[in-house]
């Protein structure tokens, strides 16, 4: 295999690897606009010029495959490459507007970062601002994207994304030279259900998100790595939040699961959490309870209704629950109720789990953890429909339920009716849920639990890949993570305390469930994806100044 030397460091790579890929693997920064690891290399921005020993002129690192014995010098080491890149940057900035204070990209803009880099940026401008060529700004491209033609550097990432990845091909360049413009035909609204990714692939502020528009400057945001809970694909994403409020969600790159993309539904799924009224306090009928009272009441009433009458308890957990919650429910039910059923199927999750909704990412099963529920021994019985039939015959004592409303799409009317029917049939029901839902109104005892992004945990996607989702924001005052509540219930049943941290629970799962054997919590984090560009590497803010 070819061995290449980049800035004095050697690496052996597979034949056909480009210089920029080898440099990324070494951690050597090469500035780039048009190169993206999940798009075809195009080599049009000329920003990744490097000096190769024996070559007459600098070459683009993104479209040059490595050869054995190649010696490459990046702009950090070579003055030839540095001058070349500086020239490219100066050309790109000739007509760039002085928009940074009002541009949403500012703070995560490649153009800003590269200009501030001491090795190839920071040239004085030779262009009088009044001579700049002006183009159209603030063009509405539908509900997801706003286009600003002046800010575009013509890297064509967006054009390639919409042609190669989503297949809609709705963007194109028109005109030439100074007057070249990115445009959608007649400025028509983009129909692409993955259009949100256009704002992510755009290295500058030309395509920005309408949803995040002017919400926050990006340097105010805190980041938490998470997993999308919108469907069984389990796309890797990063939750950006400020003062306990989620402001936006962006994809993280994971070549095995979602590459660099997420669908728009998943991107906006966090809006659902605040879109409906939340359940804020434990409640029995009209009476609000305090937690210790509520937990004791839940355990006792379930006992009286099922074990005391010799009838089985139905433990129902939706497949949107984390592996840890599912595991604790099983532990609690097995400890306290000799006769029980574990179920998670509201609908046809098991058949739908791997069923594609389109050719890219979306899947028909709108639960993030169907595979986890199956691995943990749920759903070996008769399903919701069968359970309703059992309840009709009076064969069910009580219902214990952990229910999360879907973050993408709606629960079907049929499912809602079944839930209402089941709740009316059983004499005792304890429901842990996140929102005030009309179809759960018949539950005897309602306990508020944390929703996605408010608790830590793991989800197992349709491929069987277990991934870690972090806690981004805190739930409201009296709302607790489901694992906490279940730990208390377990204590009621066994009079012993147990740790309910997700790391501890995951270790228990890995030790006793075959499908999770050998997995470690820490390794889930490290195998998870990176953001692109890799965080802390392609951003040259303060370090750039300090280095001078």
């Amino acid at each position, binding site marked *: 295999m070819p061995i290449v030397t980049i800035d004095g460091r050697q690496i052996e790579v597979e034949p056909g690897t480009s210089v920029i890929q080898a440099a990324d693997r070494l951690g050597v920064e090469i500035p780039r606009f048009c190169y993206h690891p999940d798009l075809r290399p195009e080599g049009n921005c000329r920003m990744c010029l490097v000096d190769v020993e024996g070559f007459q002129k600098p070459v683009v690192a993104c479209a040059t495959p490595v050869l054995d014995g190649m010696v490459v010098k990046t702009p950090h080491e070579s003055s030839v490459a540095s001058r070349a890149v500086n020239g490219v940057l100066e050309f790109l900035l000739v007509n760039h507007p002085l928009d940074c*204070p009002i541009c949403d990209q500012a703070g995560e803009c490649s153009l800003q970062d590269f200009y501030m880099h001491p090795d190839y940026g920071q040239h004085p401008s030779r262009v009088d601002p009044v001579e700049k060529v002006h183009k159209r700004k*603030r063009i509405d491209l539908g509900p997801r994207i706003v286009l600003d033609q002046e800010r575009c550097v013509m890297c064509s990432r967006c054009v390639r994304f919409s042609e190669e990845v989503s297949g809609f091909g709705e963007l194109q360049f028109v005109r030439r030279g100074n007057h070249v413009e990115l445009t959608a035909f007649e400025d028509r609204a983009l129909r692409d259900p993955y259009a949100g990714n256009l704002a992510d692939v755009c290295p500058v502020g030309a395509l920005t998100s309408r949803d995040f528009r*002017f919400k*926050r*400057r990006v340097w*105010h945001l805190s980041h938490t790595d998470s997993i999308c809970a919108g469907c069984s694909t389990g796309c890797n994403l990063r939750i950006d939040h400020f003062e306990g409020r989620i402001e936006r969600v962006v994809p993280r790159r994971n070549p095995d699961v979602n590459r660099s993309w997420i669908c728009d539904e998943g991107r906006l799924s966090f809006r659902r959490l605040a879109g409906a009224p939340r359940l804020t306090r434990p409640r029995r009928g009209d009476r609000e309870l305090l937690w210790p009272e509520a937990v004791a009441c839940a355990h006792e009433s379930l006992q009286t209704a099922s074990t005391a009458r010799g009838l089985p308890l139905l433990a129902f957990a939706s497949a949107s629950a984390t592996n840890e919650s599912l595991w604790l429910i099983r532990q609690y039910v097995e400890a306290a109720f000799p006769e029980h059923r574990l179920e998670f199927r509201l609908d046809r999750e098991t058949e739908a789990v791997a069923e594609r909704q389109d050719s890219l990412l979306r899947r028909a099963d709108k639960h993030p953890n169907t595979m986890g529920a199956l691995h943990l021994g749920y759903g070996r019985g008769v399903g919701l429909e069968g359970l309703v039939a059992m309840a009709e015959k009076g064969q069910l004592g009580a219902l214990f339920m952990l229910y999360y409303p879907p973050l993408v799409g709606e629960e079907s009317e049929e499912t809602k009716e079944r839930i209402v029917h089941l709740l009316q049939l059983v004499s005792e029901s304890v429901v842990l849920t996140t929102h005030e839902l009309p179809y759960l109104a018949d539950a005897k005892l309602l306990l508020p639990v944390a929703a996605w992004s408010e608790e830590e945990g793991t989800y197992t996607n349709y491929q069987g890949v277990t991934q870690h989702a972090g806690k981004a924001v805190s739930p409201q005052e009296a709302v607790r993570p489901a694992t906490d509540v279940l730990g208390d219930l377990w204590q009621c049943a066994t009079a012993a305390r147990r740790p309910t941290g997700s790391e501890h629970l995951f270790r228990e799962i890995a030790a006793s469930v075959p499908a999770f054997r050998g997995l470690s919590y820490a390794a889930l984090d490290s195998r998870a994806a990176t953001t692109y560009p890799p965080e802390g590497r392609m951003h040259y803010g303060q370090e750039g100044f300090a280095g001078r």
Partner: protein
Amino acid sequence: MARKASRVVDVRQAAEARTDVLSSTAGTLAGMEVTLRNMVRATVGREHVTIQYPEQRKPYSRRFRGVHVLTHRADGSLKCTACFLCETVCPAQCITIEAKDVDDPRIEKAPSSYEIDLSRCIFCGFCVEACPEEALIMSREYDLTALSRGPETLAYGIDRLTERPEIAAYGAGFRPHMQYPLVESYLPGEGPEEAAAEE
């Protein structure tokens, strides 16, 4: 070295010991001399050491960092573009901005709400230095009172940061990057003490 034994002094006895008439009268007269000198200076010479606050006020420097002012364009709209730089730089984190889209084709972004919690503000002036548009300057208004510490009383929104008569009365203060004279009706009017401060 052995420690020196401390001397115990009864304060009351010491005070009594000093109450000989001569020395206390001398002390009082020495104090009275200062008082009388100032009285003569104020009444005969009309040289006042104090002023009749709040009817009279001292002129302060043009660099005085008082209550903030949001400035206007000539057409009366706010100059602020909601770039959040003042909020970013504020060490007391007392500035809260919300931005909105504007219909005007020349302006893209403007604040829908702009609030400075003056009960938290430390009047360092960083916000004014950070502002690229000189949309935020400081005035010479310094006497800031409120009847409670609630956020409503000293959290000034756009309306109170622009149009209050006090701002006009005190005049503009700290505005380090001012390249242009303060015309364009940034403020409702310059303060009456303008000439005095100029000296």
